[in-house]
């Protein structure tokens, strides 16, 4: 789960990492109080998870109360549809540093990356000037050692107080990385300010979803999703993505679902939703079909090839769902795997024509979705 900037900064602050003066507001009414905490100039930062907020106009500067009020109104407008704004003091930044900790899956070490050329173009720098990125690996059974933090900070060209502060910040970041089962802890930019202080001006923090059972401080909320359906599906534990195409997918297994998605594109079709109901969800055909229908598909395509996720159980679930939901759209199936003969029988009894080849099913679904007769 990705945390929002305001959550990341709260965690940073708790760990002793310097962050700007700031206040979160959820409506324009909180602005005055926030401004009295931050002063001017200030920054209005929309709390959304997508990247490139600056270029999308979701980060605004203001020098006066009036300017701040106007821009806050703009961001909260239905057009921008921002739900939370972090109001912050504007920093006088002399230099932007990049600092991140992630996982190296090959070495199985924690990978620290740093660059003295932080800021918006860090991905570009990673691609074009990889030597400008300093790397240091940390054995997962050991902690970050002070010498490793020093290696980084000397590599960044820091000295004096900023050097010492940098060592402390990185050490604190590593503690957070381990404590919160993080996939990524990133400060970008870590601002070296005019007064010599280092301040985390922006931060990313991503917590491993598989560790949610032991990381209960943060819950997925509606804010994490771009629409209600994806949010509600996530509450059911069903992987779901909404698209604007014509075929509603109900598949099992990420690899197979991705492949079906590719095949639909290959045959010129389009997808109205991506949905997996295999694995632990293979008895959830009813819920899966409800979510699929909400994407307004012209046809539902069901492809499975399960082992534990038994074909007959899935087919029965689909039969029951059809009885209850009475979908008006045609349904194409290729349900294979454990119990597939029984599955075919169940589907035939429902009046469907079960197919056994994935490509046959995809072609049929594409044909129907493009106006062909069922």
């Amino acid at each position, binding site marked *: 789960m990705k945390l929002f900037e305001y959550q990341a900064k709260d965690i940073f602050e708790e760990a002793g990492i310097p962050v700007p003066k700031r206040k979160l507001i959820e409506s324009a009414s909180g602005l005055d109080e926030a401004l009295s905490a931050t002063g001017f100039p200030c920054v209005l930062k929309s709390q959304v998870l997508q990247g490139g907020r600056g270029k999308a106009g979701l980060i605004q500067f203001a020098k006066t109360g009036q300017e701040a009020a106007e821009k806050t109104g703009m961001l909260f407008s239905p057009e921008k549809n921002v739900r939370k704004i972090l109001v912050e003091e504007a920093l006088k930044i002399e230099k932007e540093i990049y600092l991140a900790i992630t996982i190296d*899956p090959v070495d199985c070490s924690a990978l620290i990356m740093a660059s003295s050329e932080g800021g918006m173009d860090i991905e570009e720098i990673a691609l074009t000037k990889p030597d400008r990125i300093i790397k240091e690996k940390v054995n997962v059974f050991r902690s970050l050692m002070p010498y490793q933090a020093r290696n980084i900070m000397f590599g960044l060209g820091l000295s004096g107080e900023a050097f010492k502060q940098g060592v402390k910040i990185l050490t604190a970041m590593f503690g957070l990385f381990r404590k919160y089962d993080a996939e990524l802890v990133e400060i970008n930019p870590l601002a070296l300010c005019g007064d010599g202080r280092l301040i985390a001006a922006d931060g990313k923090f991503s917590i491993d979803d598989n560790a949610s059972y032991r990381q209960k401080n943060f819950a997925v909320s509606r804010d994490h999703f771009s629409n209600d359906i994806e949010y509600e599906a996530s509450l059911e534990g069903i992987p779901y993505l909404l698209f604007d195409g014509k075929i509603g997918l109900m598949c099992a297994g990420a690899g197979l679902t991705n492949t079906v998605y590719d095949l639909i594109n290959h045959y010129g079709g389009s997808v109205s939703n991506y949905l997996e109901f295999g694995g632990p969800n293979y008895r959830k055909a009813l819920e899966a079909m409800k979510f699929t229908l909400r994407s307004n598909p012209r046809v539902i395509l069901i492809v499975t090839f399960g082992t534990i996720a038994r074909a007959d159980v899935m087919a029965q679930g689909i039969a029951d769902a059809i009885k209850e939901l009475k979908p008006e759209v045609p349904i194409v199936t290729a349900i294979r795997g454990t119990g597939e003969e029984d599955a075919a029988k169940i589907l035939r009894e429902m009046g469907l024509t079960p197919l056994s080849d994935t490509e046959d099913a995809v072609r049929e679904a594409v044909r129907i979705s493009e106006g062909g007769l069922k």
Partner: protein
Amino acid sequence: MSILINKKTKVLVQGITGGEGSFWTKHMLGLGTNVVAGVTPGKEGQSVEGVKVFNTVKHAVKETDADASVLFVPPAFAKDAAFEALSAGIKKVVIIAEGIPIHDAMEIRSAAMSEGAMVIGGNTSGIITAGEAMMGIFPYWIDRVYKKGDIGVMTRSGSLTNEVTAMLIKAGFGVSTLAGVGGDAVPCTRFAELLPLFQKDKKTRAVLMIGELGGTMEEEVADAIESKIFTKPLVAFIAGRTAPKGKKMGHAGAIVTAGKGTVDGKIKALEKAGALTAARPCLAGDLMKEALAR
């Protein structure tokens, strides 16, 4: 011959008394797997499908010389169970569990590397040597999916593996050993680490790799071919070529980030190295014939 497991491998089942553990123990035995012991703390003295249950791996290994272990434990306990197997000297461990915390996976892989062991998984169907033995959850009873033959298969997926392997069988081939490295972002064994085993195995003529977008495992395979670590024919199918950037579709490992891990990049690297890549699952069989005819 085969890689990783055969009829003689002495298999231990951790979590044998649970629902999944006992169900799959029956099927592993059914395929001929030499399941010698099970472990469930507190259940020593019981038996499952005729297999003796012990309290600890240490005890089970002492009594049965088990040399491989398959874990049917919930993801939160996978690290403990894997460490228990490694500490008892077991060098081949398969973790089926889906949802292992990534920091745990890091520790498991680290421990395995430092102890010279191989942990396969998590989030995998496991390993099957067709017609001989399996450690995992394969629908070996469906003839058109896993038939004995001489193609080694390695995969990141579950259902997709059934799909693609069925195509291979349809084209007249069979499988020597199939190893699922699992769909997680930090698999404890990586594709390229299986290649030396397939290279050495006389019963494996060629390898089919079932990959996915995200990560760099397929690129590492291309490197291994380039540097002649692996010289047999290799055919790859890679899922996710049309997946929209930045959207999380399924497996945690399948995230396109920072310009790396795209399906295009993987295909280019593999083809440059001399591997053949199938655009659709149904092409895997024909491409394998082509690769073997070269």
